[in-house]
Structure formats: structure tokens, C-alpha cells
């Protein structure tokens, strides 16, 4: 369907189903229960899952296919964010122009950065992209303050022109909207002890992400995508095969930069402000982690990686010692103290430690990321269901020598 093969179509619909039903799926625990803090089904976090999913899908087109590891992709997200806020300041509070211009500006900026950085490969390429991103970050704080508003961050104001809209509405800044539907609007559904929230902004993100995901599938299955994998596999052979690898890598770089800009634009659409910290190297590193954690070069892996990291960041960081004592209330005091003492470094502000350990475990035992784990489990079930083991699609027989 839509030019996808059978397997990709079912993957697409599976993702669609998960995204549409996420408000239910991510809120499995009833409100007010002990476990309610593990619920991720609130709009802010769900939006972030999708936005960072888009960011990671785009990054994966560059890193997963061509193997070029960019350490500066957050710069494109940042540029997209600023462009988005400026659209809302100058033009209208409708999110569509903002998102569109985010993509355009991030694309132009990535064209410049990519054109220069892609003169080198390997570690030198990574360092060049990192240098560009850090430069953008520093400039946003200093020279470019008139555009970025420096440390305060770029925000909307009551006296913004908004030539296609209104400067203010009843003395307040008008809300970001999609042709009149405010992004913040939510519909709450209460069923028994459960509370499900359906947010307009989330579903806008969902539509955009499904489009982004569809485009990524098409790129993966296209001759262009095959050439990108050829870059990763053997650039030497590629050049002696009559293919100029430079425009291929540059196109991949710009496409992934535009995905980053799209993510930046959506962030603005959900919450109309932009700060330079979005461009910092930690933000660039985060998308690398997401992609590797989920499975570089796989279609859905980066989205899972993004979800995983954002879940850890938002959920583990909220657990504190008091909550732990509540959980261990039934245990003797000494034992509870001991358990809290052991778990303490992994929660709250220590959530990075949990993430770090998970990351190490996955990279060491599942080099292909979460997707490799899923595949292994899938193969296990296949083997159980049919004894006569069919050869897998890509048998990795040992070389005959």
C-alpha cells in the first residue's frame, strides 16, 4: 500500500496504531495508585516521544545508512526552533508556517554545514560537525542575541506584529493553533480509576511523525537509500563504480538536518519558545544515543530509542527517596533503609546512571540495539513454532576459507 511492500505496510500500520492509542497504552496504571508515577500518558511527555522520534528517524538516515556520525545535529533543531518562533512573532500563531519555515531554515543551514564538513570522513567529520554546533550555540548566546534573545531565550511578546494574525487577544498572547484548534486543548476521558488525555498538539505531532516515518521508509527502500548504504559499506568501491559519493552524503545530511528542523518546529508549536541550550553538544549526543540504543540503520529502532531515553529522563528522575520508602513500607526498617541506600544513586538526579548502565548493557550484549533484541526474541518464537528451520533472509555463513 502507498508504494510500500507488505512487510513495510504492516510495520507502518503497527506504528500508526501504537501512536493513535498511545494515550491508553502509556497510562496502564489507575490514577492515584502507587504505580501511577510510571504512567507516561500525559501530553507533554507523549509529544516529546514523537518529536524526538522524528529527530532520531532523521538522524538515522544519515548515521544509520551512510555511517557518517554527526555530533552537531542539535544545531539544526535549534535553528528550526528559532525560525519557528520568529514565524509566530512575525506572521501568525498558526503552527503550519512555523513548522514549514523551521524545516526550510534547518535545511539551508545543514546544506552549509554539510558542504564543509563532508570534505572529511570518520572522526574528522564528527569533530567538524561538533565544532559547527558549538559555534552556533556560542553565537546564539553572544553575537546573535538580537535574533536569539541570548540567555533568556526567544519568546513571544504582546507587541509582536503577527501580520496575518493578531498581536494580542484579550490582553494575552494568542495560543499556538492549527487553523483555530489550540495545541494545548485536551480532551480528558475518565474510565473507572483511569484518566486518559487526548491532546490536540499530540495528534498533530502524530500526523507529522507518521508522514516523516513514511518518507523514511521510502528512502530506505529507494535506489538512493541503497547508495547511502553503499557509502557506509565501501566508499572506495563506490567511487570506482562510477558513483560520486559526495552529493549522496550531502543529500542525506540535508535530509536529516531537515528532520531535525522539523522536530525543532514541532517543539515550538507545542511550546512557543526557543533557547540556545537546545543546540548544546549534550543535545547532539542524546540523538546519537537514541539511534544507537534503538538500533542504527533500522526503521523503527531510533523511535524506540528516543522513547526509551525520554521515558527514563521523565519518569526515573521523578522518583525520590520518599517514594521508595513508600514502596518498601512493608519491609523492616533496616532492610528498607538498605534498599533505599542501594537504589538511591539510580533515581532522581541519578537517572543518568540508570540510562548509562542500560546503554552499556545494550551496546555490549545487543550491538544492534533494541531492535536486535526484538529480532532475537522473534526468531526464538519462530523456531519454536516451526521446527523445520527455514534459512533466514540473510544467512551469515562463515567464509569457506
Amino acid at each position: 500500500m502507498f508504494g510500500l511492500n507488505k512487510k513495510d505496510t504492516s510495520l507502518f500500520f503497527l506504528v500508526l496504531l501504537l501512536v493513535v492509542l498511545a494515550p491508553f497504552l502509556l497510562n496502564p496504571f489507575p490514577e492515584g495508585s502507587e504505580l501511577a508515577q510510571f504512567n507516561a500518558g500525559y501530553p507533554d511527555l507523549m509529544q516529546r516521544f514523537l518529536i524526538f522520534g522524528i529527530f532520531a528517524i532523521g538522524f538515522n538516515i544519515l548515521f544509520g545508512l551512510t555511517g557518517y556520525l554527526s555530533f552537531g545535529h542539535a544545531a539544526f533543531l535549534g535553528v528550526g526552533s528559532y525560525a519557528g518562533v520568529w514565524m509566530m512573532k512575525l506572521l501568525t500563531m498558526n503552527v503550519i508556517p512555523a513548522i514549514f519555515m523551521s524545516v526550510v531554515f534547518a535545511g539551508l543551514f545543514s546544506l552549509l554545514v554539510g558542504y564543509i564538513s563532508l570534505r572529511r570522513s570518520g572522526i574528522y567529520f564528527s569533530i567538524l560537525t561538533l565544532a559547527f554546533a558549538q559555534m552556533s550555540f556560542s553565537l546564539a548566546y553572544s553575537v546573535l542575541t538580537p535574533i536569539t534573545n541570548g540567555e533568556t531565550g526567544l519568546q513571544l511578546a504582546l507587541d509582536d506584529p503577527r501580520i496575518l494574525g493578531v498581536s494580542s487577544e484579550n490582553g494575552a498572547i494568542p495560543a499556538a493553533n492549527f487553523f483555530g484548534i489550540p495545541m494545548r486543548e485536551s480532551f480528558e476521558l475518565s474510565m473507572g480509576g483511569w484518566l486518559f488525555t487526548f491532546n490536540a498538539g499530540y495528534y498533530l505531532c502524530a500526523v507529522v511523525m507518521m508522514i516523516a516515518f513514511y518518507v523514511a521508509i521510502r528512502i530506505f527502500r529507494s535506489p538512493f537509500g541503497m547508495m547511502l548504504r553503499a557509502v557506509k559499506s565501501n566508499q572506495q568501491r563506490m567511487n570506482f563504480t562510477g558513483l560520486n559519493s559526495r552529493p549522496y552524503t550531502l543529500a542525506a545530511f540535508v535530509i536529516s538536518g531537515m528532520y531535525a528542523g522539523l522536530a525543532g518546529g514541532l517543539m515550538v508549536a507545542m511550546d512557543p519558545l526557543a533557547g540556545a541550550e537546545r543546540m548544546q553538544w549534550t543535545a547532539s549526543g542524546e540523538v546519537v544515543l537514541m539511534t544507537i540504543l534503538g538500533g542504527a540503520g533500522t526503521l523503527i529502532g531510533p523511535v524506540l530509542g528516543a522513547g526509551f531515553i525520554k521515558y527514563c529522563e521523565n519518569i526515573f528522575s521523578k522518583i525520590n527517596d520518599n517514594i521508595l520508602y513508600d514502596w518498601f513500607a512493608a519491609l523492616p526498617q533496616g532492610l528498607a533503609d538498605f534498599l533505599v541506600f542501594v537504589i538511591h544513586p539510580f533515581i532522581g538526579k541519578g537517572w543518568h546512571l540508570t540510562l548509562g548502565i542500560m546503554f552499556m548493557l545494550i551496546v555490549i550484549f545487543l550491538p544492534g540495539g533494541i531492535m536486535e533484541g526484538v529480532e532475537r526474541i522473534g526468531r526464538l518464537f519462530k523456531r519454536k513454532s516451526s521446527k523445520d528451520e527455514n534459512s533466514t533472509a540473510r544467512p551469515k555463513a562463515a567464509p569457506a576459507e
Partner: protein
Amino acid sequence: MEILRVEGVNKSFGGLRALNDVNFSVEEGTVQAIIGPNGAGKSTFLNCLIGRLVPDTGSVMFGDISLTGMKPYEINQIGISRVFQTPEIFGDLTLMENIMIPALAKRDGEFKLHAFADVGKDTEVRDKALHMLEDVGLVEKKDMVADSLSRGDKRRLELAMCLSQDPKLLLLDEPTAGMSRADTNNTIDLLKRIGDRGITKVVIEHDMHVVFSLADKVTVLAQGAIIAEGKPEDIKGDPRVQEAYLGGAHL
């Protein structure tokens, strides 16, 4: 008709003179072998032809196009393909993909942003790839990853990759190095078969058996200079060749 003409090519690496005033030409439709002891400059010479190295002086003409200063992919696009000494293949892609890439390069040129076409439905390229794999006897392994092939199979795959581009000139750098006698004979048969298509070939080879069963003309290179040229039977008896190449031993 001459398809390739090399005139007065010199190439030095620091103080080492790797190629010393080399003049060389290849007739269309023939198989020309370049032999010579280790370090004679054979691979340097081939690298100068495909744009991997740029000669210090001299000219390399392919038909009436000068190859000096052209990029490797441009040289390939005008019809010169090369098989390397150690097979250069797309190791983590399948055999099918390995052949579809050069076939696409031939059809679509050095760059095409065909990001929305479905490569799985490109029957023209798929059929071509299948046909080539059949030709070299690898069709039943078409969905395997290229790295999992044996060395001999990798060479055959690389040959199929080059042939899928229907090159006018095929350069082969020791196509049978490290192969068993049986594999060598298979490769000779294969090369003879593709000879029927009229592809001009330049072969660098150590194995005299291969040289004498394939070549129409043999060029002997020693210390960067051509010391003899002629029909295989003439070269065999040339005392200068025996001296330089075999240290005086008899063939």
C-alpha cells in the same frame, strides 16, 4: 583501433621512481597482459589509469578523452571498470545489491536523487543483476551477505559487478592471486567467455599459466620501465625477460 594510449608516463614516490617513461597502447577487443616481478610498478601503472593516482608527467588517452585529472567515478562512467587485487565489494550488502549498485550507476549516472523510487520494483536492474549472477555461478547465493563468501567467490562477484556495467575496458589486477588451481581454471574459463563479448581487457598477472592462456599480447615491466612487449610465445623465450622476471631460470 587503439582504445587506450599511454605516452611518456612518469610517477615518483619521493625518491623512488615507480614508473619511468612508460609508453603503452591497447587494441580494441584484445586481451593485454602486464607481467613483471614484485615492485615493478604494475599496480602503480593501473592506478594511474583509473585516476587513483595522477601521473607526474605524460598522458593517458582513452579513445580521444584524456584521463589525466579525471575523478575515478568519471573514468568509470566513460566505460573503464576495474577488478582489484583484494576484492573491493560491498561487504555488508547482499550479492543482489552488490550488482544492482553498479548497474544503477551505469543507468542513472554518478548521482541521482531517486529517493522515492522503489528499488525492489526496478525489474530492469533486478533482471540484469540476476543475469550477471547466473553468469558467474553465484545466483543461488543472491541473498547472502557478500562478506560471507569465500575469497574466490568474492572475486567472481567483483567481476560480475564490473561486467554489469558493460565496460569498454576492463582492468584486472591479479584476478587469480591466492586461488587454487581449480579456481584459477574456472576464472580463466570465465574470462575467456566474457572475452566473447568484445570487452577489451588489461590483466596484471603473476601466474604464467593464466597469462599464456588469455593474453593476445604481453608487456613486461621491470623497475618501472617496459623491457619487452610482444606475443606470449615470443616473450617466453626473451632472455631479458627471463633475466628480469625469473632471475635467469627457464620457463
